[in-house]
């Protein structure tokens, strides 16, 4: 028995290095993107009472109104021309605009894409398109990220727990009582620790070799190999098992086991030569065994796995960041998002929502529909929308749907020179909503086409060019806007844009839906969802796997139920069953005859009559023994005798037979029972 090597408690050096590496990589991944700064620069303000837009933008979600370090995208910067003075609705915006003016803008390819979309109506690329992450909204997004975070937490917890348990094992090994090498004390032997950890066994082997104890070193190295194979499920280590048993285990563990047999046999040969043969242990022997064992136990694998895990986490940290390096919050809550617009409409009593379903399903429950740039609309969909408008819907078209350029009665254009942002309402507009002041940046304008039989009405102009047109269709109307700026969050900060939006989208039907590039992206059927997700091969594989599983295990046909339990019946139950059979056969006389004979035989066995074998003598003896009247006993035994001799001679009823049986049983019981 060898002395357990002492080691200072604590994390082993190589594990400590891995931990540091993991931490650094995680830190690197985390710092790849700057985390959202605490709102130390938050502007303190009080939202103007009675202004719904101010109440909504007061929420911290809308960081562009509260964080003066917030960076605008390039396509959002033009709004700064309209922010000339601090506005209590969005107090941080002037400072943000000053930064933008100084050239501090968030860099983002997708932002440029969004700007391009605003200008051209091209589908905007979302950041999750770039990352390939699912574009989820609302609870789905929360659930998705919740699952990701939970998964990572579980993995980290498992890693930490594993490392801590190994650390405890180390401490236990270090504090374990050591036993003299040749101790024969059984209690001491019982206290001895059997090392099962491959790493520690290898370390122990090296320690032993360093001390010059090559025999112990070889034994530990070989033990490490066995424990590794046991961990792989290839062998079962037990004190009663020989090396030959382990080789046979490997032979039976196809496909990996047989391939490991030759190298393991080679190690066994070398170890046994020292342990049982005449060969003296030496450094050469030890090195030979150790160098064979190390590749077999694959000690580099955990390190590689740790590195791979760290790399994955680091990559995850990097890709979870926006490319601009500054976390602006979600796009929905950014200046160019629509989160505040929806909140405003909600606050106004409307049922506002983002639409994911296809537009050809728009029903009459929807009062107003806003087509934001990028919404996929084709001719059949437009016909459906046209019919919906005819029935009283209000359709708002912002930006030019490319597929409908020839269909619509307006054309989108851009002014060459910059134009003032101030929007001017036509008389009809003033008549409808009063003297609202509107403003939006940009150079886009509309050109009405001369379509026979149809007329459009210019309601808003910018620098004399039409900015918003209205076309009446049946009971409904279509509003065309030169761009989508008025339907963004930042627009609510400027002039009376918020009131205009609320008035524009308020209808009797209450439901307002905003569409974008994701509209219609939802699959209509489960089959379509599978096709889009390219899950068919996976499901097919799963199906094949299930079939193979059931073929292997056997499929259950019919209702599963436990087999009837087979238990032994008590003797009395057999007797009762037999009695019931007799009763069903109405064989009381037969039973009475059998029992009468049985009783007489038992009585004759138990009561010595001294050569007098008659029924009278037996009756006298029984009566004397039981101190009962002789007449009564003589009648009972006489009946029993007659019944045994000829059961059918007596004319008796069934109840008489049962009475006789009962009385004979009582007699037997009084004389010691049936035994």
């Amino acid at each position, binding site marked *: 028995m060898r002395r357990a090597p002492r080691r200072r408690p604590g994390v082993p050096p190589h594990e400590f290095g891995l931990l540091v590496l993991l931490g650094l990589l995680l830190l690197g991944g985390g710092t790849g993107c700057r985390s959202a700064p605490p709102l130390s620069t938050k502007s303190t303000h009080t939202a103007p009472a009675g202004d719904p837009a101010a109440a909504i933008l007061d929420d911290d979600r809308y960081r562009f109104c509260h964080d003066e370090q917030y960076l605008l995208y390039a396509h959002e910067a033009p709004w700064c021309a309209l922010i000339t003075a601090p506005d209590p609705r969005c107090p941080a915006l002037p400072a943000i605009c000053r930064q933008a003016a100084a050239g501090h803008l968030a860099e983002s390819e997708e932002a440029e894409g969004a700007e391009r979309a605003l200008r051209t109506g091209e589908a905007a690329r979302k950041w999750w398109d770039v990352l390939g992450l699912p574009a989820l909204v609302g609870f789905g997004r929360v659930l998705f990220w919740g699952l990701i975070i939970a998964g990572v937490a579980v993995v980290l917890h498992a890693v930490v727990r594993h490392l801590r348990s190994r650390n405890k094992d180390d401490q236990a090994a270090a504090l374990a009582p050591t036993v003299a090498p040749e101790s024969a004390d059984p209690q001491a032997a019982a206290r001895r620790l059997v090392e099962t950890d491959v790493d520690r066994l290898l370390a122990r082997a090296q320690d032993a070799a360093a001390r010059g104890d090559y025999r112990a070193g070889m034994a530990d190295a070989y033990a490490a190999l066995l424990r590794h194979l046991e961990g792989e499920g290839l062998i079962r280590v037990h004190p009663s098992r020989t*090396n030959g048993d382990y080789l046979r285990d490997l032979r039976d563990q196809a496909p990996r086991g047989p391939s490991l047999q030759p190298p393991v046999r080679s190690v066994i040969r070398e170890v046994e030569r020292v342990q*049982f*043969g005449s060969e003296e242990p030496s450094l050469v022997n030890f090195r030979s065994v150790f160098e064979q064992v190390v590749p077999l136990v694959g000690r580099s694998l955990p390190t590689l796995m740790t590195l791979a895990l760290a790399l994955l986490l680091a990559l995850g940290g990097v890709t979870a960041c926006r490319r601009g390096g500054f976390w602006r919050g979600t796009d929905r809550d950014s200046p160019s998002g629509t989160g505040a617009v929806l909140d405003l409409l909600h606050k106004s009593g409307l049922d506002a929502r983002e639409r994911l379903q296809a537009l050809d399903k728009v029903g009459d429950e929807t009062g107003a529909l806003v087509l934001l740039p990028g919404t996929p609309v084709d001719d059949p969909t437009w016909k459906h929308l046209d019919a919906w408008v005819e029935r009283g819907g209000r359709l708002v078209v912002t930006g030019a749907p490319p597929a409908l350029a020839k269909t619509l009665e307006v054309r989108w254009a851009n002014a060459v020179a910059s134009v003032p942002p101030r929007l001017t309402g036509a008389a009809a507009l003033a008549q409808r909503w009063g003297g609202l002041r509107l403003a939006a940046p940009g150079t886009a304008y509309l050109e009405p086409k001369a379509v026979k039989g149809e007329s459009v009405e210019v309601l808003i102009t910018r620098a004399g060019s039409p900015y918003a047109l209205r076309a009446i269709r049946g009971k409904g109307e279509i509003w065309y806007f030169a761009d989508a700026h008025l339907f963004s969050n930042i627009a609510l900060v400027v002039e009376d844009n918020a009131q205009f939006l609320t008035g524009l989208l308020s209808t009797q039907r209450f439901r307002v839906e905003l569409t974008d590039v994701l509209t219609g992206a939802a699959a209509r059927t489960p089959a379509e969802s599978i096709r889009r997700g390219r899950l068919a091969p996976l499901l097919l594989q799963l199906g094949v796997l299930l079939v193979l599983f059931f073929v292997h295990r056997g499929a259950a046909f019919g209702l599963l139920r436990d087999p009837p339990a087979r238990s032994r019946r008590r003797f009395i139950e057999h007797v009762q069953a037999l009695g019931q059979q007799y009763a069903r056969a109405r064989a009381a006389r037969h039973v009475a005859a059998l029992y009468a004979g049985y009783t007489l035989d038992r009585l004759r066995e138990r009561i010595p009559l001294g050569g007098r074998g008659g029924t009278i003598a037996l009756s006298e003896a029984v009566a004397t023994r039981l101190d009962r009247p002789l007449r009564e006993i003589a009648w009972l035994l006489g009946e029993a005798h007659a019944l045994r001799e000829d059961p059918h001679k007596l004319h008796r009823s069934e109840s008489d037979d049962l009475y006789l049986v009962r009385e004979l049983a009582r007699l037997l019981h009084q004389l010691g029972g049936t035994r």
Partner: protein
Amino acid sequence: MNVQEFSMRFQRIRAEVARVLVGQDEVLEHTLIAIMARGHILLEGVPGLGKTLLVRALGQVLGCGFKRIQFTPDLMPSDVSGSNIFNQRADAFEFRPGPVFTQLLLADEVNRAPAKTQSALLEAMQERSVTSDGVTRPLPLPFVVIATQNPIESQGTYPLPEAQLDRFLLKAIIRHPSQPVERQILENYLQGFDAADLVRSGLERITSDREILEMQDALAAVRVDAGILDYITDIVGRTRNHRAIYLGASPRASIALLHTARARAASEGRDYVVPDDVKALAQGVLRHRVVLHPDAEIEGATPDECIDTILREATVPETAAA
């Protein structure tokens, strides 16, 4: 002869016999080990499994004298050992040797003869000599008895007494061959093999009786570690304390286990015994040396099961697991 030469020759003998005896590798190995360890072997199995073929093939391959005694209920001891017969011409008794005077003796169906005849083998097996009318005559060396017996459940059998069973170094059980092995046997017969005519099958003589003796002497060079001795005594000692065993194995069993383990080690080219040698031979050495309690037998326990239990409890020396 060193261990390597021993191993080479052993494997050649084994391969040569295996040409005609298909699918009984373990029995063949145990038989050869018993021969090399200067012991006798008892083969148990139902008729038709190749017991006689094994011995005849061994006789031919080993180059030793071979005789066979078919044990029957009316076989007399003198039919085994020989007897003095009066020579009228010489006017004197002269000894006519029995079939026991050979090197390789096949005692076929040894348990069909009564105990008196069985015991005639006793002296020959133990002392390797025969005494008749006060004269002791040595048997030619090497002398090996390979006895076969039918399972004691068969009709018309006389169980061998414990004292005689203990003389056998090993007891091997011959079991029915697997289907592929049986098919191979049939194919051999289709190709002209005839068990009654081994000369035609081209069996080569690998050794001589002198070389067998050299091989037996070579085992003395096989080293046995102290841990192995502990392992052997542990196993044999446990047979005396097992709850299902009425009579445990004797020290002769320990010696037999030691000798056979050395032979097995040498057969694999090792000059040292490893625990696997002991474990591999424990059942063969011990199964006929233990007597089970009657109630254990009624419960269906067998010596092999009991020994297996013991092997699962005995701690192997130098194990990494303890």
